[in-house]
Structure formats: structure tokens, C-alpha cells
């Protein structure tokens, strides 16, 4: 099957099934096809647009965190209007500065996501990618509604926590899109690594990324007064152990593979920073901040940074998980370290 053949809808469909059935990459694919780039050529403009959107989304997470840390969520009581108007910008003072600022950045990201969905639909020939564009659009719309809902319901912990969680999930989704639209992912052949230890890397990295996701839900639930801090602290220990285990395994045994080494290193640094910021958030919010007359600057700084770096920890661990799946075989052991002649035993 040459490149042109990929336009046939059935062919696209078959590829999708094949890649789904074996994880992220398919070893069963005919050798003549470069993996994961069957039909879509690298599109530089599209890739950079997704990068821009990812950066914008991180900014949006910061803007959203500023609203919570400044206790400004209800400073604008109405939604989707702001003080009765859909377009008029109110005086940006006090809590309104944060709440309406967050709404404006969110609307911009919403618009960019529409562009993303349309562009991806037109430019992509990988059908799962086209769907991912639509999923991103659906997520951003749902996220907007959750944000509005939480204002109209006076910030119930469950809805606010869902809004925080979905926001981080959206960021993750966009970062995944950055990765899979990258030149490396689309054109390079994965190097299959040889694993010598159990648990397998796939198991480790899945648990690690999953635990980070749970960790951010627990953090958000505490932040929105849904639960106590203790579950988040216990979970932080689990997250730290799983991440360090995964990271040390990769750096010790697979550091020759840059696609694994780079996210592993980044994750190590982010984890350390995040633990420090978590400690700072605890001191400023819980120890010193509980009787404060108003949100203190140090608390706002520590908590907002902790939320933003939390998003980076999550996204990086998911990127690492994807790369691990791409560079390891779904079967137990691999004897040969190159895909061209990869044979699977047992």
C-alpha cells in the first residue's frame, strides 16, 4: 500500500483497528510502511499551531488557578454574560480582574480549538487524529459549560473539581496532539527497547501516569473544599515512588533512547519542583493562611505555581507513557533491538 492508497476510507479504517488492537503502534503492519505515518505527511504549520494552543492552554490553567486562589469565582455572578453583557469588558478591578480575565482567555482558547478541530479534520489522514480534534473541541465546550455551571451553582465542590480536572485533561490532550503531530513521531522509526526487569515499563508508566491523574483530582477536591488534604498527601507519596521508579528505570537502562530519556529527565525535575511547591502551598494556605484576612500574595503564588506545574507533571507523564508504549513491545520479551527484524518470543 503506497501513500496514495491511504486515501481510501477502508484502508484508513483498517489501520485504525490494527493500531488499536495492539496498543499505540502496530508491529503487524507491512514492513514497507513507516510506522504511524502511513498517510499523513508532517505538517509544520499545523504542528506549530498545536504547540501554540498548548502554551495558551497552560496560560489558561494559570488564569483559572488565579481565580480560585484569589477567591474570585463568584465576583461575576452571571454566566454566560458578564454583568449582563456578552461582549462589554467590565472594569478589571478586584476579583473581576481574575474572573473575567479567565473567561476572556478561555474564549480565546475555545476559538483556537475550533480552528484546531477544523484544521485537523482537513489536514490529517489518520482518522483517530481527526477524531482527537473533535474530542478536543467537545472537551473545551464541556469545560466552558462546567465553568458556567459552577458559577451559577455557587461553586459546589464536585462541579468545581470536575472543571479543574477536565481543564487538566484538555491540556493533556493538546500536549498529546503536539507529540503525535511532531516530525519525530510521524517520520522516525521507533527503536524497540529490550526489557530485562519486571514489572514491565508499560505497567510502571501506566501506574505512574494514572496516579498523577488521581493526585490532581485529590488536589482539586481539597482546593475546592470537597475533601481533607490527607488523601492528597498520602497519594503524593505513592506518586513520588511510582514516578521515581519509572524514571530511574529509564535513566538506568534505556537512556540511549532520547524519546524516553528526555521526558524522564524533565519529569524528574518537574516532580522535585512540584514537591517543593506543594510544601509551599501547604505552608502558605494551611499553616499561615487559614486565618488571613484576604488571599496573601505568597499563597497565591505558591498555589498557582503548584497547579501549573501539576499540569506539566501530568502532561509529561502521559507523554512518557505514550513513548514507552511506542518503544516497547506488547509481548513479554524482545530479543532483537531493531524493528526491521523484530521477532517476538513467547
Amino acid at each position, binding site marked *: 500500500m503506497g501513500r496514495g492508497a491511504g486515501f481510501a476510507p477502508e484502508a484508513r479504517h483498517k489501520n485504525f483497528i490494527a493500531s488499536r488492537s495492539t496498543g499505540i503502534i502496530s508491529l503487524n503492519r507491512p514492513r514497507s510502511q513507516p510506522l504511524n505515518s502511513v498517510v499523513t505527511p508532517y505538517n509544520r504549520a499545523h504542528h506549530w499551531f498545536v504547540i501554540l494552543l498548548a502554551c495558551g492552554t497552560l496560560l489558561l490553567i494559570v488564569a483559572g488557578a488565579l481565580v480560585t486562589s*484569589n477567591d474570585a469565582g463568584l465576583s461575576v455572578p452571571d454566566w454566560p454574560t458578564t454583568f449582563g453583557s456578552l461582549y462589554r469588558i467590565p472594569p478589571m478591578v478586584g476579583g473581576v480582574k481574575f474572573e473575567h480575565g479567565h473567561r476572556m482567555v478561555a474564549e480565546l482558547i475555545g476559538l483556537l480549538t475550533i480552528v484546531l478541530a477544523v484544521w485537523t479534520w482537513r489536514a490529517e489522514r489518520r482518522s483517530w487524529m481527526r477524531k482527537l480534534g473533535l474530542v478536543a473541541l467537545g472537551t473545551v465546550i464541556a469545560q466552558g459549560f462546567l465553568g458556567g455551571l459552577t458559577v451559577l*451553582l455557587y461553586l459546589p465542590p464536585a462541579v468545581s473539581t470536575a472543571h479543574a480536572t477536565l481543564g487538566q485533561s484538555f491540556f493533556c490532550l493538546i500536549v498529546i496532539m503536539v507529540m503525535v503531530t511532531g516530525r519525530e513521531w510521524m517520520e522516525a522509526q521507533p527503536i524497540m527497547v529490550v526489557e530485562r526487569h519486571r514489572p514491565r515499563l508499560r505497567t510502571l508508566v501506566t501506574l505512574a501516569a494514572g496516579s498523577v491523574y488521581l493526585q490532581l483530582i485529590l488536589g482539586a477536591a481539597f482546593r475546592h473544599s470537597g475533601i481533607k488534604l490527607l488523601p492528597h498527601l498520602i497519594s503524593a507519596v505513592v506518586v513520588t515512588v511510582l514516578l521515581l521508579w519509572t524514571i530511574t528505570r529509564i535513566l538506568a537502562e534505556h537512556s540511549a533512547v532520547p524519546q524516553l530519556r528526555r521526558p524522564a529527565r524533565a519529569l524528574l525535575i518537574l516532580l522535585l519542583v512540584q514537591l517543593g511547591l506543594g510544601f509551599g502551598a501547604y505552608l502558605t494556605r494551611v499553616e499561615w493562611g487559614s486565618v488571613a484576612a484576604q488571599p496573601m500574595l505568597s499563597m497565591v503564588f505558591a498555589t498557582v505555581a503548584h497547579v501549573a506545574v501539576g499540569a506539566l507533571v501530568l502532561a509529561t507523564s502521559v507523554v512518557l507513557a505514550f513513548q514507552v508504549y511506542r518503544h516497547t513491545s506488547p509481548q513479554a520479551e524482545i530479543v532483537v533491538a531493531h524493528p526491521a527484524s523484530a521477532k517476538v518470543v513467547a
Partner: protein
Amino acid sequence: MNKKMYVASLLVLVLLFVAGCGKKEAPPEQATAKPEAAAAPATKIDPATVATVSGTVKFDGTAPKPQKIDMSQDPACKGANETETVEVSNGDLANVFVYVKDGLGNYAFDVPKEPVRLDQQGCRYHPHVLGVMAGQTVQINNDDNTTHNIHPSPKDNREWNESQPPKGAPITKDFARQEVLIPVKCNQHPWMKMYIGVVKNPFFAVTGKDGKYELKGLPPGTYTIAAVHEKYGEQDQTVTVAAKDSKSQNFTFKAGAGGAGGQ
């Protein structure tokens, strides 16, 4: 194609549903419940026999220093910039809400027609603690050159959150059920906090700087008097008054404690 249409219409449905939920919760204009006393067989108070309970609320120990407030977020905000959480002068504790919690049986009380006022001035609430009867109107005024939002977070009453433009028209509200104390907040100016005590009877007072309170016009009987402070919690005391009695009943709140230590 069909599948796509299906997914799209599903998405639209979900969104409509979510939007619908949001609308449903949008605050209805009027609180519906009437004061519960209306149902009970009413006993009238004989004005010739009424008694008075009064006293002072004291503070034992060193009061925490009032915290500084930073109003620089909003140039329209200028005013006293210290918190009013614990206001102690000469050992007297201000801003304590004192009311008859129990013992009034079947007495019926008319809800006063005139509203109580809550003013926003210099990005502060005046007063810091407000008493009102269930069903009585609270009139909220904004004397400031900035927008405020008023957000009470009650447990037993309906929650609401409304904004009031600079020097905007007064907002009138009432609270249907007894609830002591409802925290009220402005999210534009996160230092703005106050408390509302809603009581079914007219026997309530808020201590001033001298720590004094007075409950007048009580029919003879035995009552539980509660003193409630936003930080130090509640203290209850029982007092019995005969016709035309004038009884004194003091309360003492201790530094660092949360409610214990009545006398």
C-alpha cells in the same frame, strides 16, 4: 456520515441538558417560605408583664491583633483597613450576636415592616454583624464607586449571589428560616466579610464596642440565651425571668478557645 450526525446530536443534547440545569438553578426572585410561627396557635404577649435580660460579653486573655487589609486591588476602595473579627476594648467583646434560642413556646411575633440596612461603604460592610427576623426585609446599599457582589452562604436558607453596580439601586432580600450566623462575602474584595443572624423571634442584639447587649420585652419564663461569635463559637446560658424582671447575664469568651467558658 450517519454516525457523525448521531455523535453531533448527542453532543448538542448533552450541552442543552447542562445549560438547562444551569437555568433551573438560576435564583428565583422571591423567597417563598413564610415564617413558621404562623401555623402555631398564637399566644399574645402582655406588655404589662415584660422583662429584660441584659449583660456584657467579656473577653478573657490577650486578643489577637486585628489584621491589616490591603485594598490596593481596587482604587475605588478607601477606608479603615483592619479586620473586625475580634474587636476587644477594655476586655469587652464587640460583634457578638446574642438571642433567645429557646423557651418562647407558642408566642407569635409580627415581622417588622421596616427593613434592616446593610451598607457597603469604603469597601467594608456596616454593620459587621447584623440581626434580622426571619422574613424581615434586608435592604442592601452600595455607597461605593465600585461594583460589589453580595454572596451569603447559608446552610438552611436559600443561597444567592448578586452584584450591585457602583451606587446602584438597593437590593432587598429576606431569609425565610432561623439561622445563626450566615457568612456573607464579597468576591470582588475578598476582605469584605460579615455575618447575619436570622431569628424567628424579635429578641436579639449585637454587642457594641462596650460588649453590652439588651433583650427587652420578654414575657416571663425560662429561656436559653445564646451568644455567638464568628470565631469563638456559641455559648448558651439559661435564665428565668419573672414579670417585670430585669436580669443581668454576662458571657465570657476565652482567647484561643472555641465556645467554652460561660459563667
